[in-house]
């Protein structure tokens, strides 16, 4: 196969690491001023409206691995088309514009019209619909993403598309006859195999995890390139119906108390503090090892 069509589906999420411990303490049901239920009746979680949005960790790796696969195929004289889409709605636009500048030829956002957190079934229906609309041989996804971290979306998409699915993918390289040499982490440990298309590949803890940065020149050259918008109806998905029949519902949130004391060890210099830490907390414990 001389031409390989790669479609990457990605998620945009609040940067949860930017929240303070107090924000999480308030987010649990057991907090006095705990979260209000969302209109859908499920717990609302922490307030994230003012938190910056980032790519899902594994989704970012998937986007970069697709670019590297395109580059590796180009070295063999093979053509690759790249498309990216997100079901995050307009919040994905800035990321999609960046992807156009990086060489993705098509960029699309799906307007779900509803919050999809903790709704892997509805998410998978939209992702499968978007992938079919964009028509790829390989669908690349992140293996999981917050806040739900369900880890099942790639499999639900694969099931809907009738494709095999490999998850925890860490490397993708060209192989002969349009196939791919894929390294992934299975229960047995790291595995490398030749994979035929069409397939779904869900990226896991890849060493290549950061998306490259486009040049200003590339950004300017692609600024007129449009981000295509699909509604759920365009993809044949009734989101309300999908959410209603979501078979597992979030019904409560609790804070996690890890029960540590957090005692600060004092001292004037690093050596003083190390001595105090050793004498007060470590000496006896290390001697018993």
């Amino acid at each position, binding site marked *: 196969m001389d031409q390989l069509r790669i479609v990457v589906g990605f998620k945009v999420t609040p940067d949860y690491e930017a929240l303070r411990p107090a924000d999480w303490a308030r987010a649990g049901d057991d907090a006095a001023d705990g979260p209000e239920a969302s209109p859908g009746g499920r717990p609302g979680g922490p307030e994230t409206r003012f938190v910056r949005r980032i790519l899902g960790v594994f989704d970012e790796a998937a986007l970069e691995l697709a670019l590297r696969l395109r580059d590796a195929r180009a070295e063999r004289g093979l053509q690759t088309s790249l498309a990216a889409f997100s079901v995050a709605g307009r919040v994905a636009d800035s990321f999609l514009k960046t992807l156009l500048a990086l060489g993705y030829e098509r960029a699309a956002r799906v307007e779900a019209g509803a919050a999809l957190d903790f709704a892997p079934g509805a998410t998978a229906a939209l992702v499968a619909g978007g992938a079919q609309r964009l028509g790829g041989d390989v669908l690349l996804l992140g293996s999981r993403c917050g806040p739900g971290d369900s880890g099942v979306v790639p499999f639900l998409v694969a099931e809907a598309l009738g494709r095999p699915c490999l998850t925890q993918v860490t490397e993708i390289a060209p192989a002969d006859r349009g196939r791919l040499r894929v390294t992934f982490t299975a229960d047995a440990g790291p*595995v490398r195999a030749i994979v035929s298309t069409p397939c779904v590949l869900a990226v896991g803890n890849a060493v290549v995890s950061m998306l490259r940065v486009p040049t200003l020149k590339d950004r300017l050259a692609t600024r007129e390139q449009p981000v295509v918008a699909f509604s759920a109806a365009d993809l044949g998905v009734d989101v309300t119906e999908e959410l209603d029949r979501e078979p*597992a519902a*979030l*019904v409560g*949130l609790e804070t996690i108390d890890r029960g540590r004391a957090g005692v600060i060890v004092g001292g004037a210099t690093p050596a003083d503090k190390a001595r105090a830490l050793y004498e007060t907390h470590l000496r006896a414990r290390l001697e018993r090892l």
Partner: protein
Amino acid sequence: MSAPATPRVVAVLDGTCVGVDRRARALAGFLRDGLRIGKDAGAAAEAVTLAFYADSGARDSLVELAPTRDVRLIRAPEFRPDLMSGALTAFEAGGGAELFVFPGGPLGAELAARLAVRSAGSALTDVQGAAAGPAGLVCRRAVYSNHLTGRFELRARPWCITLDAGWYDARIEPASEHSVRADVELSAEESSAAAALRHVELLEPPETGDLEAAKFLIVAGRGAGSRGGVERIAAAAARMGAAFGVTRPVAMNAWAPAGRQIGVSGTRAAPVVCLVAGASGAPAFLWGVERAGFIAAVDTDEHAAIVHEADAAVVDDAVAVVEALADIVARERQS
């Protein structure tokens, strides 16, 4: 007592690859301590193990590891989740069950998700505990990157759940006697997906045994500042006789080998003493050290999450404090 014709609970055990003993213990631990359905907690009494094996030589030892008395065996080729999914779907359609329990891991997630779709049930991964609720099975699992615990109600049956990695620590003896109720062989030609995966090659896994078994563990985070800083902490750890691990950002910066990674993406350790140097304390990392008996932290930011998640903390430069500590430990050992 003979098993019911339609078992309520099915424990699915993959014996086609290494690590089956850990998976069997996790299933047994969950059935005994993590599952509360019915009037009593004895769901395991009505459970059956559906065990997959690839090599006939492993069949008998797999039966011995089964977490339930009743065992049904299915022989399947390695790396064929499509065939396993088909067998599970046929099993469900042939008599049904309320609950399918899978060990954690990629295969369990795939089998649970595909079975739930095909049988109009519900799937949930990384479950820490489950109990009967008013309208279904209520399960607990970490959400929001391990910042919070979520309670989920699974309404559609069969409930298909995979276990949180914590259940792999279960020290449960397998059932003392077993009764093999069926033995089925799946053909490699049964699925059109047969050609999807070729030339499967198992790679050498990164050596992490020392991290899992470490009694004294030192973990370097991005606060070490550079590859040089990480290497200085590693050298100090070696002087103290401690195992050495790193956080994900350190591994992603290629300041240390990926196999040294501690946390959700790496190893889950359980040392007696853990010293965390220059890590902010992201929950995905804390998951990897939260079973430590004692956690000491060093970080320049007194408001960093790790300061509150440790038993004791030093607010200062991580490299300087760890090297000073190594000097002290070395002197104490000489005296």
